[in-house]
Each structure stands twice: as structure tokens, then as C-alpha cells.
């Protein structure tokens, strides 16, 4: 299982590392995430760590020193006031705001386990996740207190800490922002829960610790200890908790650093975080990676509609950002963005779903900096592949594996496929999770002999660059031919009048399955005939959509990934 140097035969991508990417990384020198973040906080103490920006430009900030002090106090609150033990799961359920890093680092410093929870979950999903993880406490935003109240008695949660979106903003600004949310937007429900507000929790923790730091809770942690439970797998029905250890995350941070080193300057980056931190991608790439290099993180609580990001982009000299295809596409269609594209961007990273190369081209032309695609999944903490930032990048690929990571493509029997053939992508590396919490069978099915089976179908070229063809289960079988929805969607979105498109397979008497395209127009004038013509030009017969439907929008995940499964349910009533 150990990664051994070399083996060019099976790792042709090593040739692309060149002088910019190290092949062999030393094991992370820190024993745990708290050890790493405390070091960063000492080094960048007076620099701004986080700034939350509201759609009207109002903002609040915390320095590294403040985050460090507050998270120490929160760790004391969890351990000494609430009496939690090391390893106890604590759920975190909020949009991007200043409370997020304070609470998350606090939970880790307490030696507890972070249960990252999507605030948009239904009560049913919340109940499942809290029970499945065994969460003892929850730190939740007041916007969803009513949902929590409904199910709290059905869960093991004993303590509720509540935060506001404008928490830690300057006083008047906080009151105005809160007042607008509560009285104008009526977004904050009333509830009968017994809660402790985060500032009060910090106060009580501060009293307990009387000047000491929280090191005594975390100094015994090691790479094998659990750090996070990140839920995933909504696609296969019930959500499972991926167990990510301190070692998994520290390794992945080192791997991401190695891939981006050429474009990261310590203490000088300003990163825009519009993707939600409760998702593994932004949590690891935006928050943890950037925190350790002393970056300033600009947090946007809710980037939809995309206009809400405008002030954040205007008021700060953003150097890095991450997004998904839909986010970049949306930005490129905003007048304010096109009129004044950001000037300081060094690089942007895209992931979550395939980037369409029309979007990448337009972005790079407008911004003048690379938009690099990556590939990852919750079960791999998450980064697996990135396009190298230096040199040539091959469009429409996920790039090459991050250091110390092996990839093989296998057929249905688990055998390696021939070079250039399609196969399921399997990953082996120090970032691969410990397994799914309390689900040994699912774990055994997913991790076989140390290889994580991703369910994604990919191909590799001679240089070792990978390309995702599709999800194994999204493949459409038309009269015995494999059709990959991504390919069709990419063709469709290249049409000027198409904003975005989703392709699914539907049962057909003639061909077993047929291709159906659901399209959001960019220009009203688009007709089905135009789409058909476009497809005839670019696609062979069996790949062409048999049914074309125009829609106002497409179902998406919170980070903007198009949900084909939901679409299929919606239109086919499955």
C-alpha cells in the first residue's frame, strides 16, 4: 500500500511534474490539524483571516489571532462547560460566515469530530445525519432554528449553540444586518429551543480557560484520529458519513499545496469563497489550505443570485477563487463582471462537475489567469487530480494525480483496462478516507485492497492526463452504444444561445434508452430546430437527443452541480 518512488510505466503523469511539482512528499510534520492551524495563527497573528461580505457590501472581519483565541475558548466551552469527551461528534450547520472557522477550529481543538452539515437540509435529512453521526452538540445558524426544533427530540443532540450570519460584525452593522434579515426579509424564525449564543459560549469558555490555550485537548491527537465526518452519497439513496482523519486531511493539504505552490505566496493571497464551506471542496481547498498559508478568506454567505457576489469581488483584490462550472458561467454572464473583470486573479480552480471548455476559454480570455480543473470526492478528502498550473493544460481533462496518489482504471471485473480505454477510476493514496461510519459493507464495496472505487468512468492519455467520461450510472445505452451525457452537454453548451444543458437517458421502446436534452436558453430566440441542426453538425446519430425541452432552470446541488438524478425523477417520475 505504501507509495514507492518511480514506476514510470504505471504513472506516466510523473513526467508532467517537472520542476514545479515534487513527486515525493514528506509525511506531514504536524500530528493534527489543530497543531497546523495554531502555527499559522502565530505566524500571521495580526493579519485578517476572514471577512464575511453581505450582498450590499457590509462586512465583518476576524484576524488570525482572534480566530485562534475564539477557537481556544470554544474548545474549552465544549470540553469543560458542556463536558464533551475527545472524539465526540459535534455538528456544524451554517452558511459561510465568521462563526464557521471559529466553531470548526474550536471543535478540532477540543479533540472532537466535526460533522459538516448542509443548512439547506430538510428535517428528515437532518434527523438522519444527526442520528447516524451520533452528534452530541450542534452549532447552527438561527435561520434554520425551526427545523432543528422539529426534530431535536429524535436526535442524540444535547446542546445547541446558535449563531447569526452577521456574528462578530461591528456593532451597528451587525444590528442593521440582523434587523434586515429578521424584520424585512423575515428570514429568522422564532423558536422555543434552549440555546446558547456563540458569543456567550465563548465567554464561558474564556472564563474556564483563564488565559491557557487549548493545547491540552489536542496535543495527544495523531494522524489516525478522526477529524471530520463528511456526509455524501445522496446519489445512492441514504447519506453515509465519510470518516476523514487528521492524517487524511493533512496529507491532502500537503498535496494541494504541492500542486499550487507556483501560484501561492505566503501571507499575500486573498481568496473568494462563494462555495459553501459545509461542502468538502471549499472546506479543504478554500478554508484549510488557504488558512495555512496566511491568506485572507472572503466569505460570501449566499452567492445566489450571483449578483450577491458583486460587492465582494469589487471591494477586495481577489487573487484566488474556486467555483463550479455553473458559478463561472454565471459570472461570465453578469454585466458588472464583464465590464470590470477582476484584475488581481492569479488562478481559479474548478471542480465538483466537469467544466465546459467554452466557459474555461471565456474565463481565461477575460481574466487573463488560468482556470484549472480538478477532480476530487468526499471520500478522498477531496483532492485527487488537478491540472498542473504551470505549462500546458489540456482542456476538458481533470489533469494529473496529486503527488503520492496512484490511479488505475478498471473494467467491471476489476482488471486494469488497456491504455486509452475507458474504465472506472480507482484511487490509492494517504488522503483516502478511513471508511464510512458504521457501514462496513458499504466500505468494503467502495475500498477494495486499498483502492477507492469512485464510480466515475475515465480515460488516460499517453502523458498520464485523465479525463472523466461520466458517472458509471449516468451512462445511457442507446441500441447497445454507450452515450455519455457529459459529451452531449458539452456540445449543447457550445451553442451561443444555450445557457446550460442537462442530458439524461429515458426508456425507449425502439432503442432501449434514448437521449433527452433539457436546455436553459441564453437567448429567447433559440428554437428546437437550431438545437437539432447544431447536434447534427457535431454528433453522430445515436448520440443526438431525441427529445429537446426548454426550461427556466435545472435542479442543482448547493454548490451548483447539475443534478441529473433529480431531473430524471422530475421528468420521468421515477
Amino acid at each position, binding site marked *: 500500500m505504501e507509495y514507492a518512488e518511480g514506476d514510470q510505466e504505471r504513472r506516466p503523469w510523473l513526467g508532467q511534474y517537472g520542476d514545479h511539482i515534487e513527486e515525493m512528499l514528506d509525511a506531514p510534520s504536524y500530528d493534527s490539524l489543530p497543531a497546523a492551524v495554531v502555527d499559522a495563527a502565530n505566524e500571521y497573528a495580526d493579519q485578517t483571516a476572514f471577512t464575511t*461580505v453581505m450582498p*450590499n*457590501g*457590509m*462586512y465583518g472581519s476576524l484576524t488570525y489571532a482572534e480566530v485562534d483565541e475564539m477557537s481556544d475558548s470554544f474548545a474549552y466551552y465544549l470540553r469543560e462547560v458542556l463536558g464533551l469527551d475527545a472524539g465526540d461528534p459535534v455538528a456544524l450547520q451554517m452558511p459561510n460566515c465568521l462563526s464557521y472557522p471559529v466553531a470548526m477550529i474550536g471543535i478540532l481543538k477540543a479533540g472532537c469530530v466535526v460533522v459538516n452539515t448542509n443548512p439547506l437540509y430538510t428535517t428528515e435529512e437532518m434527523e438522519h445525519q444527526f442520528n447516524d453521526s451520533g452528534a452530541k452538540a450542534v452549532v447552527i445558524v438561527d435561520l434554520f432554528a425551526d427545523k432543528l426544533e422539529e426534530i431535536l427530540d429524535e436526535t442524540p443532540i444535547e446542546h445547541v449553540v446558535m449563531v447569526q450570519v452577521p456574528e462578530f460584525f*461591528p456593532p*451597528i*452593522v451587525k444590528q*442593521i444586518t440582523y434587523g434586515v434579515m429578521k424584520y*424585512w426579509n423575515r428570514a429568522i424564525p422564532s423558536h422555543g429551543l434552549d440555546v446558547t449564543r456563540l458569543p456567550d459560549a465563548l465567554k464561558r469558555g474564556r472564563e474556564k480557560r483563564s488565559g491557557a490555550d487549548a493545547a491540552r485537548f489536542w496535543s495527544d491527537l495523531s494522524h489516525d484520529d478522526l477529524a471530520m465526518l463528511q456526509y455524501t452519497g445522496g446519489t445512492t439513496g441514504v447519506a453515509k458519513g465519510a470518516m476523514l482523519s487528521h492524517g487524511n486531511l493533512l496529507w491532502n493539504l500537503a498535496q494541494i499545496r504541492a500542486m499550487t505552490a507556483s501560484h501561492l505566496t505566503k501571507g499575500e493571497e486573498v481568496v473568494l469563497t462563494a462555495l459553501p464551506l459545509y461542502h468538502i471542496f471549499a472546506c479543504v481547498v478554500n478554508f484549510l489550505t488557504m488558512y495555512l498559508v496566511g491568506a485572507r478568506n472572503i466569505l460570501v454567505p449566499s452567492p445566489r443570485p450571483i449578483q450577491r457576489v458583486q*460587492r465582494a469581488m*469589487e*471591494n477586495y483584490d481577489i487573487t484566488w477563487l474556486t467555483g463550479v462550472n455553473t458559478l463561472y458561467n454565471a459570472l461570465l454572464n453578469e*454585466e*458588472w463582471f464583464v*465590464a*470590470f473583470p477582476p484584475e488581481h486573479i492569479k488562478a481559479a480552480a474548478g471542480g465538483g462537475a466537469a467544466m465546459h471548455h467554452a466557459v474555461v476559454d471565456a474565463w481565461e480570455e477575460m481574466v487573463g489567469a488560468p482556470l484549472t480543473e480538478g477532480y476530487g470526492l468526499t471520500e478522498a478528502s477531496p483532492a485527487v487530480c488537478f491540472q498542473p498550473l504551470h505549462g500546458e493544460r489540456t482542456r476538458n481533462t481533470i489533469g494529473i494525480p496529486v503527488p503520492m496518489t496512484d490511479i488505475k482504471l478498471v473494467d467491471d471485473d476489476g482488471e486494469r483496462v488497456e491504455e486509452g480505454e475507458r474504465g472506472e477510476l480507482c484511487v490509492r493514496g494517504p488522503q483516502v478516507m478511513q471508511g464510512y461510519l458504521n457501514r462496513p459493507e458499504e466500505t468494503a464495496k467502495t475500498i477494495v485492497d486499498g483502492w477507492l472505487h469512485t464510480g466515475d468512468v475515465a480515460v488516460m492519455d499517453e502523458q498520464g492526463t485523465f479525463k472523466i467520461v461520466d458517472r458509471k450510472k449516468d451512462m445511457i445505452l442507446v441500441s447497445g452504444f454507450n452515450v455519455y451525457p457529459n459529451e452531449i452537454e458539452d456540445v449543447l453548451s457550445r451553442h451561443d444561445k444555450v445557457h446550460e444543458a442537462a442530458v439524461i437517458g429515458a426508456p425507449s421502446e425502439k432503442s432501449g434508452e434514448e437521449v433527452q436534452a433539457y436546455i436553459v436558453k441564453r437567448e429567447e430566440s433559440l428554437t428546437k430546430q437550431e438545437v437539432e441542426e447544431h447536434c447534427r453538425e457535431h454528433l453522430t446519430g445515436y448520440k443526438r437527443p431525441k427529445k429537446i*425541452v*426548454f*426550461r*427556466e*432552470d435545472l435542479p442543482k446541488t448547493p454548490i451548483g452541480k447539475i443534478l441529473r438524478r433529480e431531473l430524471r425523477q*422530475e*421528468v420521468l417520475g421515477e
Partner: protein
Amino acid sequence: MLTELETTLLGVMMIIIMLGMGSSLTFKDFAIALRKPQAILVGMLCQYGLMPLTAFLLATSLGLPGPYVIGLVLMGCMPGGTTSNIFVYFSKGRLSLSILMTVCSTLMAIVMVPVTMSLYGRGVEGEWQVPPDQIITLLGVLLVPTLIGMVLRRKNANVGAVMELMGGVLGVFVIIFLIGSWVPRNWGLLMETGFPVYFASIGLGLIGFTLGYFLARNLRLSTIRARTISMETGIQNGPLAILIVAMVFTGEQQQLVLLIPILYSLFIVITSTMVMFWYRRITTREQIARDNAKIGSVREK
């Protein structure tokens, strides 16, 4: 007439209102808006074309005496009020368009108010004329806080956003302040004032709402934009007109000219509130209809 304290207070509040208005926009917003200027042009057409003409025609057809004509025409020539932004926000209209129209018409006021005033006020006896240079000076002075507001916004978004809110709220507050201090003192005058003056004061706003909407619709703007332009057109900067009158006229003269701007300011709060609720209902209904249409398109076959 206004006491010296009232005039001074009004002036100070006006400066804060202008600061707030400046804070609501960035220089970039401007540059972006100028790339597609149709909506602004429509707005300006309403603000400096329709409204002064409406005021003039109302005054003529009602046969109002000189001081009232000047008061009404002045009211018609005013730029958009900052309170319109709050009403547009509550009516679920296009806030960005409203802010932009308010700022544009205010910046253009320094040219357009003297021009429209001299056009429509020509027939009035000399003693009631408002000297253009005084208007220009006053508007010029008020541009300074507007620009300071824009710079503030740029320097610190928190200060800018707080100023913006204060400016909007103060606009309403000035009117409440006037009701509280001016109305009781002039109760007798209000009782004696005839129907035509009331009709003109209330009608100016209502006609503005109506014309603004239909003009925008005729120029093929969406209904939501049309409703925004409608509110923006109907709601004029009342406090500014009152301030101009207070600076230019004194004594008995001031009392007469002041009447219509004050009445307009009082009633526009009431009519705007009603229109706001109405527009809000329409917008909500449109949103629901759109959502339903989406569901329908999904379910088809």
C-alpha cells in the same frame, strides 16, 4: 413659513440624505449603467420631461395663482427622492434601477432644474420667479456630500452602507418632522386652502405613477422595471424643493410658495405606501405565476 431652526435642520438633513444617496452607488455601478442606458434615459424622460409638464398643465388647467404655480412646477422639476428607494425595495421592485435613477436625476438636476423651471415658470410674475443661479448654487453644494458619499462607500463599505440606510430613513423622517412642527402651526391655512391646491398636490404624484408606468411599458420595458420607474417618477425629492423655497423666499412669500411642496411631501408618503402594497401584491402574483409555469413545463408529457 419655516423657522430658522427648521430651515437649518432641513439643510443639515439634506446633506446627510445626499451623503446617503452617494453611498448607495459606486463609480463602477455608473460606468456599468452607462453601457446600457435605455432604462436611465426612460427615467430621465419621465423625471424631466413628463413631471414638469404634468405640473405645468395641472397648474394651468386649475388656474392656480403665481406662487402656487411656482411651488407646483418646482415640485415637478425636482429629481427623484431618496425615499423612493425604500418604497421600491418594499414593493419588491428593482432596487438597483431605482438607486441609479435617483442618483442620475440628482446629478443632472444642476442643469435640468434651472432649464425646466425657466421653461415652465416663464408665465409667472417676476416676484415669484426662482433665480436660476440660486438653484444652481444650492444643487452644486449638495453635489459635494453626494460625491463624498461615493468616496466613503469606496473607502469603507460598512460606513457607506450605514450612511445609505440613514439617508433613506432620514428622507421619511424629514417629512414626519415637518408634519409635527409645521402642520399644527398652519392648521388654519390648511383649512382655508381650496380643493384645487389639494388636487394638484396629490395629483402630481398619482399622475407621475401612472405616466411613468405606461411610458416604460410602451418602450417595452418589463412590468417589474415599469413599476420601478413608475414609483421613481411619482416620488420627487420633496424636502429638496422645500429647502430651495426656504432659501430663496422669505416671510409671507415663502409661506405661499411653500404650501404645495409641503402638501405634496405629506401626501406622497401616503399614496406611495398604498401603491407600494399594490405593486408588491402584483409582483408576488407574477412570481407565483412564473413558478407555476415552470412546474407546468416540467410536467408536460
